[in-house]
């Protein structure tokens, strides 16, 4: 059963195509990692998958319906977006930030009610940051902010969560925390799609890996797709993959 299905997609802006021939199926309870060098179009692909920008060719279907036919609100109930954590211009509390995730359920003129605040608090608790609810969201750490944004996606009660480089600029502890959270979300039946620059993270959490290269789009299990040959040609530098005795994968420059 596919939640989100992209067929023969061409992505780009205006008349400029960035990549084409993309086929991607997202299934519930899975983690899909998207890798690719800087500027290749990962964000463009995400935005197309979420319906934020139109595709140049091909369609994206949500539960069988074409995204282009659906209203923003409808899409928001199914797909949640977790952007990279960035400081905001306004000093919203963490709870306020998270309760904004309920917008799609409020109707045009509505404001959040008791039930919405409950959902938001709940989401915070699930991620272990319930204590941050009344804190100023601009004065918490990057990792905490990233978790808050994930909590917002949870409050949105969407089945698909799209994350744009959620571990960028986070310290080690926070990276581990986020990756664990991602695995936990999938375990609960959500579909998580995230982009990352760390092939090792993909090895750790991904059920499916997709690489977006200059002239290719390849999907499959991590061990199949993230071969030294693929990785080297993707990033343009000689790389090798080592498996440690405990089963972890380490990616590094090829020994010369």
């Amino acid at each position, binding site marked *: 059963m596919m939640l989100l299905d992209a067929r023969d997609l061409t992505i780009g802006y205006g008349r400029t195509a960035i990549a084409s021939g993309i086929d991607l199926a997202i299934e519930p309870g899975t983690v899909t990692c998207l890798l690719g060098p800087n500027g290749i179009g990962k964000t463009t692909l995400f935005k197309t998958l979420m319906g934020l920008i139109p595709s140049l060719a091909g369609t994206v279907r949500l539960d069988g319906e074409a995204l282009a036919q659906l209203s923003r609100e409808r899409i928001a109930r199914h797909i949640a977006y977790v952007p990279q954590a960035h400081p905001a*211009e306004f*000093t919203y509390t963490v709870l*306020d930030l998270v309760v904004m995730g309920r*917008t799609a359920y409020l109707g*045009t003129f*509505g*404001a959040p009610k008791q039930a919405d605040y409950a959902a938001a608090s709940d989401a915070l608790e699930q991620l272990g940051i319930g204590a941050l609810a009344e804190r100023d969201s601009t004065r918490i750490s990057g990792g905490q902010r990233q978790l808050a944004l994930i909590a917002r996606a949870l409050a949105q009660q969407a089945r698909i969560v799209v994350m744009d480089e959620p571990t960028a600029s986070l310290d080690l502890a926070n990276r581990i925390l986020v990756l664990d959270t991602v695995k936990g979300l999938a375990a609960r039946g959500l579909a998580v799609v995230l982009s990352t620059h760390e092939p090792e993270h993909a090895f750790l959490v991904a059920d499916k890996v997709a690489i977006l290269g200059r002239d290719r789009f390849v999907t499959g299990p991590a061990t199949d797709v993230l071969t030294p040959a693929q990785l080297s040609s993707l990033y343009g530098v000689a790389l090798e993959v080592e498996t440690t005795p405990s089963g972890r994968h380490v990616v590094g420059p090829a020994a010369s």
Partner: protein
Amino acid sequence: MRTATVLLALAALLIAAALLAAGIGPYRIPPFAVLDALWQRLIGGPVQTTIDTVLFNIRLPRIVAAGFVGAALAAAGAAYQSLFRNPLVSPDILGVSTGAGLGAVVGILLGFPVAMIQLLGFAGGLATVIIVVTLARALRSSGDVLVLVLAGIVVGALAGAAISLVKVLADPYDQLPAITFWLLGSLSGVKAHDVAATVPVVLIGLAPLILLRWRIGVLSLGDDEARALGVEVGRLRAVVIAAATLVTASVVAISGVIGWVGLMVPHMARLLVGPRFDRLLPAAILLGAAFMIGVDTLARSAARIEIPLGVLTAVIGGPVFVWLLAYNRRKLLP
């Protein structure tokens, strides 16, 4: 909830300000007489004494007008601050005040009656924003608000240059003083029928802002995030611009150009109820109305002659703003 308490307090402040203002003025009316006259108007037939004339033909229209001017400017300022994701934005960012100024001073230059001057002011404000939006639409590649801001700066600068040209062409004895006073802002000539014409338009403009206040707040997260949360950003932006322009143009048409209110009152309101727009808007509206009533009362009673409103708001606004920044940096700026 705390917000409700604050809003109630602000409403009480507004009513108190209005009553106080009704009792202040160069023509001495003792407080008891003020209340008595108000009561008489409510229950019995009006008595045509001078007190009645001063209260109901001069002071009250002015107080009501001041309240709506303050409310409109504060609401527009708060909405734009959310829309442009910047707490330092004023309602004039798309040029509505400058455009209204141009329309009105052209009316003064051509010697039109006051009603026509007001109409030209209103039309000028609307036309300027339409030009800015059209220009931005023709220029932009993505839906970024930056292009709107730039277009607003350019068109606003052109309108400002045109105003300067009008000043050069105007008769220095007859027209230039009138132009100068208009550009500094004043409610001295406001009559009941001005109020009757303006209030409905302001209410029409405020309605969508109030009804959509939750979603307008979500806009402050950025276009992509807002869309992903279910907001039709393009449409909402158009509604906010239309509503803010409508309320601003209609009050500038009767009061002239008044700065600082739209920038400062939302900040003061933010201190009281926090940055969430659905709470900020009602607070800003009430606070703006009370503030403007206070300023206008000062304008007409601090000296024998009228002090222009724009001068007062700047003189009061500047130091208040600095104080706000100094003592409340944490709450105001991230």
